[in-house]
């Protein structure tokens, strides 16, 4: 990648061209240009004691010789008189980009001269404009490739992140529901153990009373025997009464059944929430989606807020319910997280413009306008590193717009935030296809 390359310097391009002295005759310089060694050179440097006096190009010599009798008249004169006394000088330590910028700004067209490379003003060699430009071109190409690669990389990691956001919210959801299930499971199990214990004691007491009754009926039974049976039966009765369960038996069974109901509801909700057993696009009542998201998030929400539900009568909405549930859960968890101590989350729904509007508001921290403008941007989060991916709302936005709906947010710092969603009753695509219309009708 371009970034990892050690930066190219002019010193890498320098050609050690042997300079010519200012006194050299024009004709000798012309001969030099014809020599094999100089075939690639556009010009030659004129140097005295390390100091660059100028450069002389093939073009300069040609101009001299093109004059009438040029060679004869000027051939013996010192080259000094015909050179360009102000050539382009480039310090050897200059970066290649800076040098090329400088050279491009100052070079004359057509290109007849190269530039002189110096170190602290002292002659070091020649640099060719063409190789400089070539180098630059390579770099641009490399950078382009790097850009393409970076772009591919970014796309890959973005889809990876979207995936991990999904997994994270799934994990959160499963963990939350596990906790929710453990609560009813806790009292159901305890109740069952209590009743088992109670039943065992009752059975013993029943046997003891049986023995007592039999001894009472038995003519041969002695008073001693009877009173012994009586004592045992009474003790067993007391042991049953001591549990206090007899009076609570009704409550105990009610609670147990209630708990089992809760557990089935949670399991049902989990299934509804992910809609694994349903078609991708479905006709649903969004009030049910709201309830489902509430149940899934209850564990987190209940610590932070009281939930007020204000549902209207809604038409069925055609949507990918599992995606919409994900959106609702995300907005609900954000709302709960925005509340510092304990607050209120209000859910409203109503039919509006051939669709359904849902409003979810909280009286949490709210956000300033600068934050509000960015919350749908991918990776934008104000949460500490590791706590928020900043993808929740950007994914929610994508989901809602893909459904042809809209999502907007209003917020006042210190007062709270309201998210407003609207989803059309029917998906645009299905409105046009007669097949699905027939199926729907």
């Amino acid at each position: 990648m371009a970034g990892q390359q050690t930066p190219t310097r002019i010193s890498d391009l320098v050609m050690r061209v042997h300079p010519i002295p200012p006194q050299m005759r024009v004709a000798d310089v012309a001969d030099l240009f014809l020599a094999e060694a100089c075939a690639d050179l556009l010009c030659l440097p004129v140097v005295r004691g390390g100091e660059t006096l100028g450069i002389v190009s093939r073009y300069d010599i040609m101009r001299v010789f093109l004059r009438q009798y040029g060679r004869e008249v000027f051939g013996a004169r010192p080259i000094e008189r015909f050179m360009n006394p102000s050539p382009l000088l480039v310090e050897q330590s200059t970066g290649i980009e800076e040098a090329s910028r400088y050279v491009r700004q100052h070079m004359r067209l057509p290109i007849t001269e190269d530039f002189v490379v110096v170190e602290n003003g002292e002659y070091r060699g020649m640099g060719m404009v063409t190789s400089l430009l070539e180098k630059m071109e390579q770099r641009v190409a490399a950078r382009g490739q790097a850009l393409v690669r970076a772009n591919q990389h970014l796309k890959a990691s973005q889809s990876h992140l979207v995936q991990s956001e999904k997994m994270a919210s799934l994990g959160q959801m499963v963990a939350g529901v596990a906790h929710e299930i453990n609560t009813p499971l806790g009292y159901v199990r305890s109740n069952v153990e209590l009743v088992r214990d109670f039943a065992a004691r009752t059975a013993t007491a029943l046997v003891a009373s049986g023995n007592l009754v039999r001894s009472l009926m038995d003519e041969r039974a002695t008073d001693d025997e009877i009173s012994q049976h009586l004592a045992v039966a009474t003790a067993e009765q007391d042991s049953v009464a001591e549990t206090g369960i007899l009076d609570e038996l009704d409550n105990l069974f009610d609670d147990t059944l209630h708990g089992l109901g809760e557990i089935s509801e949670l399991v049902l909700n989990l299934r509804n929430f992910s809609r694994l057993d349903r078609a991708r696009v479905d006709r649903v009542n969004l009030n049910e989606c709201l309830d489902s998201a509430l149940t899934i998030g209850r564990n987190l929400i209940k610590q932070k807020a009281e939930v007020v539900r204000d549902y209207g009568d809604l038409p069925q909405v055609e949507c990918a319910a599992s995606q919409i549930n994900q959106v609702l859960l995300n907005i609900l968890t954000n709302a709960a997280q925005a509340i510092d101590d304990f607050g209120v989350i209000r859910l409203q729904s109503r039919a509006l413009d051939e669709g359904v509007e849902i409003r979810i508001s909280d009286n949490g921290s709210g956000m300033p306008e600068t934050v509000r403008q960015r919350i749908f941007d991918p990776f934008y989060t104000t949460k500490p590193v590791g706590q928020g991916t900043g993808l929740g709302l950007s994914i929610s936005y994508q989901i809602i717009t893909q459904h042809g709906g809209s999502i907007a947010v209003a917020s006042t710092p210190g007062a709270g935030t309201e998210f407003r969603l609207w989803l059309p009753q029917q998906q645009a695509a299905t409105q046009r296809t007669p097949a699905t219309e027939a199926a729907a009708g």
Partner: protein
Amino acid sequence: MQLKPTVLFVDDEERILRTLNLAFGARYRVLTANGGARALELLRENTVQVVVSDQRMPHMTGVEVLRQAREMQPAAMRILLTGYAELASIVGSINDGEIFRYVQKPWQLDALRNTLEEAVAIAEQSAAPLLKKHQPQKTGNESTAAPAGTEDDGAIVVLDQRPDLFELIRDSRPGRPVLSAGTLDEALAHMAEQPTAVLVTDLNLPEGDITDALRLLKARQPELVTIVVTAFRDTTHLIRLINQAQVYRVLPRPVSRNMLLRGVESALRHHGMISASPALLRRHRVAEANEVAVDNGVASRVRGYLDRLRGRPAPV
């Protein structure tokens, strides 16, 4: 009739409270609270031997309830009874709640009965010395604060591969022996030579996880106070550290200097307090665990060390 010990249950699910009341009402005087506020009210009005609280409740978490209970009634044993083990709540329950057990829902009635019975017995035995110790102290969040004079001069052993913790502690405690060990064996050797008050250790050592070693050490030498420093974030593991090793503090790695020094400070005070009073030692009794499950190498090394210990006068 003898007064029944009092147990306070805190949970926002009334059905949980109802079943616990039924399960324990015959044995104990049961108080129930459906939230933190009510729990604190009851703690103000009643002397309680054991507080059992749920973690996730509106307004106040269980850890917070237990932390405040610790301040109001330090003698009461604290138990967290929760449906979902979450890292933050576990660490909080160790460091702030200083809890006796972390029990998960759904619980087994028999096991919970035993845990409560044990907790009640310990609370009753240790109440007197604890109350004495706590009378003069009104600083708030260090409930284990004992008068400075009760600090003994037991060593601090730092069991860690890297030198940073050791150096930090040594430099902050001139006058107290601070010993560094790279392996469990070295640490045991130090401890055999010198009475040790506090063990600061990482969980992952060359010889593997040392939770079992901690458990054995704590079972036989309850006055040893342990601080675990770890980057490890496995919840089941931390729960074992509470229930089976009664660790005193868990600090996340990389550890902040202040947190570490504060932890060591209160560990030393805690050590001074519990070794001064045998009844208090029982407050850190660890749960029975299957001895067979313990890696034999670790077990025999720890036992070897303990045998050597017997050569010198027992601390109790």
